[in-house]
């Protein structure tokens, strides 16, 4: 089942010779005896038992609702729990994302796994540790303060008496509420948190021992493949079952409304059947013309306005005296592009559904599947098994629904593997973003007002309808969930008058969901580029400009900017560079944000080279300065930052969903190219570690700065502003061509 990743278990009782006293915490708490404990495991968020258990060998099991998406979270949570409990990391195992065993810590998104999930686990561990110390103290007749813990062994400082966790609790429930006031370990005493611990899962990934969901097998499992419509909204009109007569081992062709799938004994037969089956579908054209996308976005009905900041009276100031600046920015529709297409295994047993998938939100998926199949919630169990990186809500949940539908139809466990075309074509997309910005500059070159309007779909980070439910017309929630995309529409700079409004659109062309740094990336792109435009208009150095408009009380922010200038050896001068000569030109650009205005600080500088004849941009280097407060694992944070930079350079330079009136047309890597090795920039990172500060997330914030850093660098190199992501060659060439004359050679 769910693989084990901690090194092999070792016996903790190292000949301590302690007297083993069978003891029940539940008795001490005045509750029922151990024998009366209910058989099922608590998953209540306020219960210690929901988060951890210690067995009779002293092995600690952590139950995490947050899952490791390839981000190192499993290791980070192990570090936190081990340090808080004072046990070695080797004694800790993490079980993640199992709705029967783990509490609902919320979906694994928003860079909150450590910030929220880790903190919850830390608090549960602190509560448990305190309770165990209390018990040991009572037994030994000393004060809890007279005890020390090391490697799960509690020792009295006076030297008289030892208890192990195993002896005190081994295998029994704590029956304790998590105490929010239980004191947590002093950061100065951390032995494991803050250390660059190597990830527990990586060795298995290098030897082939690691089990991904794509490797996951259950006995009696059959292979399923889906046959998706050729157009969104197309109706399935006919299926010629005889067309796959010669494919061996076909178990069943499953047709339910517009849902079509095949189940076979072998995987290859399922692939062939899905490929060869002859079907007819109705025509359907529900998409706008790609060439008119921004017109479409701008004229989509607005359901409401979210005013995300309103300081002073920006509209009046902008209408009044002063130099005006205005610009429109846009950011294309993109796809998650998971390298391993979505995959799931489902089985119905006695009418109950068990679903294994790589969903980042198994508790929510459980509710959706229960709704879809009209089952009571208790009859559905969703279990997380690592997949490839999903970067948000991709097709994992949909594959789970596909597998469940097929499993129900054939009465056996079914594994569904999405093809590359299924993944690129049918996973939900990051919606298009259109932004208008305006600013007013007075006679002393001071920015007096900033106004921005964001055209983005309504909704938040809720559930996304399952494709199978839609196709088979089964119950679904019909929500539009693009993610928390109003974030970072507001800016942190100190202008006297600021108004930022998000126009929430009624709909968006594709089924939407959040992709890494949703909204924050698009919004910061527009904000940080437009800020750069203003800096250029007043002939100011862009980095100095940002410093000048940052609240002087924001020491951490100013620190980041200061470190950035030094790390990147920033040359103080306005943009663009002068003179601009020759075909290959170089430039640098900076970008800065306090993520969501409330947490992680990041500053970045990009160095680029532009070929003015072809429009090709080469990002040669990125500098990043990162302050996320207390760092649990610096190696892990650096890896995430590198990932943010490289993945987002790809999104900024190349990535754009292509589509016709009926359907996505970028259905594979040849039509949706991503960054390759020769194009990867050098990256230099400086982490600012503040162990006494709050712990903030690191998985996404850096990504928010990448597109604007690049655009600002291209401006520096060429004098031309790129306002439309992706910065494809054709667009860049056109922008260069319609710009003013370059200097003579």
């Amino acid at each position, binding site marked *: 089942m769910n693989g084990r990743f901690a090194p092999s278990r070792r016996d903790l009782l190292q000949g301590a010779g302690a007297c083993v006293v069978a003891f029940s915490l539940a008795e001490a708490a005045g509750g029922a005896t151990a024998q009366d404990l209910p058989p099922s495991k608590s998953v209540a968020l306020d219960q210690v038992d929901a988060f951890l258990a210690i067995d009779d060998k002293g092995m600690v099991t952590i139950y995490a609702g947050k899952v490791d998406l390839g981000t190192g979270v499993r290791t980070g949570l192990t570090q936190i729990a081990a340090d808080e409990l004072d046990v070695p990391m080797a004694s800790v195992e993490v079980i993640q994302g199992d709705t029967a065993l783990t509490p609902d810590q919320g979906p694994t998104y928003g860079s909150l796994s450590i910030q929220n999930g880790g903190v919850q686990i830390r608090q549960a561990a602190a509560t448990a540790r305190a309770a165990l110390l209390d018990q040991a103290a009572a037994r030994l007749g000393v004060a809890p303060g007279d005890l020390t813990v090391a490697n799960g062994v509690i020792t009295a400082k006076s030297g008289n008496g030892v208890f192990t966790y195993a002896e005190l609790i081994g295998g029994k429930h704590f029956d304790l509420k998590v105490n929010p006031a239980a004191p947590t370990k002093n950061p100065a005493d951390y032995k494991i948190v803050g250390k660059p611990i190597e990830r527990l899962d*990586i060795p298995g*990934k*290098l030897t082939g021992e690691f089990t991904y969901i794509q*490797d996951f097998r259950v006995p009696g499992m059959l292979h399923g493949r889906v046959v998706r419509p050729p157009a969104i909204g197309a109706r399935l009109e006919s299926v010629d079952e005889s067309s796959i007569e010669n494919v061996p081992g076909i178990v069943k062709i499953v047709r339910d409304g517009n849902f079509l799938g095949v189940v076979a004994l072998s995987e290859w037969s399922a692939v062939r059947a899905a490929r060869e089956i002859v079907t007819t579908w109705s025509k359907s054209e529900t998409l706008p013309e790609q060439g008119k996308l921004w017109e479409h976005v701008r004229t989509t009905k607005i359901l409401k306005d979210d005013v995300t900041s309103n300081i002073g009276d920006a509209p009046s100031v902008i209408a009044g005296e002063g130099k005006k600046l205005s610009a429109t920015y846009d950011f294309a529709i993109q796809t998650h592009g998971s390298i391993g297409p979505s995959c799931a295994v489902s089985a119905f047993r006695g009418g109950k559904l068990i679903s294994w998938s790589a969903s980042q939100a198994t508790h929510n998926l459980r509710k959706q599947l229960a709704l879809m199949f009209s089952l009571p919630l208790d009859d559905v169990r969703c279990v997380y098994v690592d997949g490839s*990186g999903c970067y948000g809500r991709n097709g994992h949940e949909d594959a789970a629904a596909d597998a469940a539908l097929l499993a129900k139809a054939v009465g056996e466990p079914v594994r569904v593997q999405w093809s590359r075309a299924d993944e690129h074509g049918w996973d939900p997309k990051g919606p298009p973003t259109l932004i208008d910005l305006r600013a007013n500059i007075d006679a002393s070159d001071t920015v007096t007002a900033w106004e921005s309007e964001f055209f983005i779909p309504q909704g938040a980070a809720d559930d996304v309808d399952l494709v199978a439910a839609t196709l088979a017309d089964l119950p679904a929630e019909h929500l539009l969930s693009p993610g928390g995309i109003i974030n970072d529409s507001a800016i942190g700079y100190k202008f006297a008058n600021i108004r930022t409004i998000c126009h929430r659109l009624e709909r968006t062309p594709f089924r939407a969901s959040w992709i890494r740094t949703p909204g924050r990336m698009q919004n910061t792109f527009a904000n940080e580029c437009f800020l750069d435009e203003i800096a250029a208009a007043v002939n100011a150095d862009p980095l100095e400009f940002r410093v000048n408009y940052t609240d002087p009380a924001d020491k951490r922010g100013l620190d980041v900017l200061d470190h950035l200038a030094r790390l990147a050896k920033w040359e103080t001068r306005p943009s663009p560079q002068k003179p601009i000569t020759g075909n290959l030109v170089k430039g640098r650009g900076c970008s800065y944000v306090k993520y969501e205005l409330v947490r992680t600080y990041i500053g970045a500088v990009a160095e680029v080279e532009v070929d003015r004849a072809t429009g090709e941009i080469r990002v040669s280097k990125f500098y990043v300065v990162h302050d996320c407060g207390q760092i649990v694992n610096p190696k892990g944070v650096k890896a995430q930052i*590198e990932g943010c930079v490289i993945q987002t350079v790809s999104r900024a330079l190349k990535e754009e969903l292509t589509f016709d009136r009926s359907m996505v047309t970028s259905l594979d890597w040849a039509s949706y190219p*991503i960054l*390759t*090795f020769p194009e*990867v920039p050098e990256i230099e990172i400086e982490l600012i570690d503040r162990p006494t500060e709050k712990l903030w997330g690191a998985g996404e914030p850096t990504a928010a700065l990448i597109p604007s850093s690049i655009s600002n660098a291209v401006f520096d190199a060429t004098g031309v502003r790129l306002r439309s992501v992706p910065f494809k060659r054709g667009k860049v060439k056109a922008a260069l061509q319609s710009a003013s004359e370059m200097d003579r050679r």
Partner: protein
Amino acid sequence: MPIAINVNDKSHVIYAEPSTPLLYILRNELALHGPRFGCGLGQCGACTVHVDGRPTFSCILPLAAVGERKITTLEGLLEDGKPNKLQQAFIDEQAAQCGYCISGMVMRGQALLRANPSPTDSEIRNYMRPNLCRCGTHAAILRAIKRAATGQEKRS
């Protein structure tokens, strides 16, 4: 009709459709985890194995075409069950985020180092181009290959 193939120095008799791409045989019939399904189209490299030592996409190599050629997967690089020099270099550099592409990266990287034991940065980048990574682990992968090539540690 059974077909015999040689994988990781062992002979296996396979009962499957001869048109089956080798990738599915390795993963299903032989239960190997190394080669992975990324696209089935020869576009991403997640399925890379060695065929007579040469890096090859196993997703476009039908079982009927394997013949007597020797197939090596990630598992076949282990030395006495332990990671070989390149695999260890990946572990030491922590060169994996989700890790799904990593088997393909190691197979391709290993072929490079056999042909060119001291490649330049540019040579590594160009050689590795056919293999895609979506998480953005490229920088760490380059460090890992360099580390295995020169045997020197590079600070990450």
